[in-house]
């Protein structure tokens, strides 16, 4: 893996989000290699030092690039974290796959909206998040997984997330979970 190839991989991830590579694929410098639990492949995720990550924008009070409907998107992601985080004591990635109904219930518990409205917001949020690599979801698929991007959260951010996890009501149907 020479410098040019590394640069190309960085450009690819920068332009198109985390890249899925076959098992045994390249491991460019500065990138996290996130193997799929079933070994069918791996994700390349660029890892920035804390002094260069998106969190710096927050600290400086500068607007970062946000999704449309940032609040609903964040709530959808929170619902998915609640459903897909297998063990809050451990790492977030790879998590487990959660059924759509489960996520819908978790989201409904957050927003307290009418079911049709809530469903519409959930679907839109899942689509946005899946497109930007925060969730793994194929259009119409029954199961949702966390995307490789969540592995970029550092330890301090994970502890914030743990508190959020605990503060959210438990979602029924834990038995329905299947290892991804």
């Amino acid at each position, binding site marked *: 893996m020479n410098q040019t190839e590394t640069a190309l991989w960085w*450009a690819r991830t*920068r*332009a198109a*989000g985390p890249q899925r590579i076959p098992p045994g694929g390249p491991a460019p410098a500065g990138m996290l290699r996130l193997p799929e639990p079933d070994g069918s492949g791996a994700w390349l995720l660029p890892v920035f030092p804390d002094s260069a990550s*998106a*969190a710096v*924008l*927050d600290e400086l009070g500068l607007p*970062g*690039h*946000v*999704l449309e409907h*940032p*609040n*609903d*998107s*964040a*709530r959808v*992601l*929170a619902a998915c*974290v609640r459903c897909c985080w297998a063990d809050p004591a451990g790492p977030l990635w790879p998590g487990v796959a959660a059924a759509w109904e489960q996520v819908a219930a978790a989201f409904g518990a*957050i*927003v*307290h909206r009418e079911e049709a409205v809530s469903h519409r917001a959930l679907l839109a949020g899942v689509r946005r998040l899946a497109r*930007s*690599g*925060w969730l793994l979801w194929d259009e119409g698929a029954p199961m949702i997984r966390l995307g490789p*991007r969540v592995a970029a*959260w550092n330890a301090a*951010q*994970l502890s*914030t*997330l743990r*508190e*959020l996890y605990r*503060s*959210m009501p438990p979602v029924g149907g834990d038995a329905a979970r299947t290892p991804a």
Partner: protein
Amino acid sequence: MSEPVDAMLDDLTTEAAVLRVYRQAFAVLARESGAMILDVDLIDVDEAILEAFAEAGSDGMTAAEVVVACHRFDPRVVERRLGVLRDYRAVSKLVDRPNEQHYRAAFAPYIMVLFLRRLAERGGQSELHQLLTLEQLNVSHQDAAESDGQASVNRLTKVFRLLANELTSLVQRGAAEALRENAQLLWGNRPLIVQAEEVHGIVLQRWPALGPQCAALRISLAAYGDAIEAAAGRLIEQAGATRALGFLPAETWISFARRSDTGTLAAVLDTFVFDAPAPWLSPQALAEAVESARPSGGPRFRPPRSDDGPDLAGPDLVPADDTAELRAAAEQLLGERSSVTVAELLDEAGDWPTGRRLVGQMIAIHHHPDLGFELRWGNGLRIDAESFPSWVSAGRFERLTGASR
């Protein structure tokens, strides 16, 4: 003369602009309408013919020699052009006799060609500058007379009026494209106006009698300035917020998009790299979003208002019915008597806590509308410092006669 089939649009517009200047310049020379040159290349032919004559020297050339000298061009075109030049006496017979085959060229047509070339390249601005400089020299010359000044001012007035008129009509009626093609009228206008004002100043200072003519010049200068402002405003408005006057008009883009194939369209983006930063969501943002979605507390009630009264008026405000109570108290105070003094009652009470209750009762009974008793205070005071009460006003508590309604 090859048809400009492969010519690009830019070349065509440039040629059109050059040709327009030539036609404008030749308009004063044309003998009849339709006799104007219609192709910019003919000027090149003219130039080549005149160059050939210059090379030929004083012996002149025959028509055939001219055609040979101008072998770069189509012989027929050269011959035709030569005929036109001959008609206009730009080329004439060396000796004026019937069978003379040799021709000579006048130098004026070549000067004209040179002048036109400059005019086409610079849009006539530099000529106008030189004209203004010359006018300034003329009017500044110590031998210049008032008539020179007047003529100078009149010429300038006409030049600027024509400029302003052309611009104004373009702004008001012309298409924006036409305005853009004629943008040379807008170039370097400030120095022109300043120069003209200098001439105007010199003339007005030397010959104050030319005031009216100078006023006309000032007006035409102001009109030119206004026309420039209007034209610039129109161009900027047409360019939109980008202020990019060099942009192609929207129609060109649309026709490009309609007529191009996929490859051509894709080629437009060949040099672009799409590098949008990925959206970032922090756990903090997640927590805040979840928190903000929580409903706050139970249902909320509005605070009470002053006009909420009717509900509270019910049992609380019914007058207390203490008639019986007070009547019993009065009977107890009076006993068998029909009248008793306050002093007697207080003496019976013995101490002030009891006494003041008795006084309170008597006042309440007195004021009760349904009871036939009365407390009447009179003049006089009983004072006995040693005993209780130490002083008492004279007063009687009595049963009203014919009372007990």
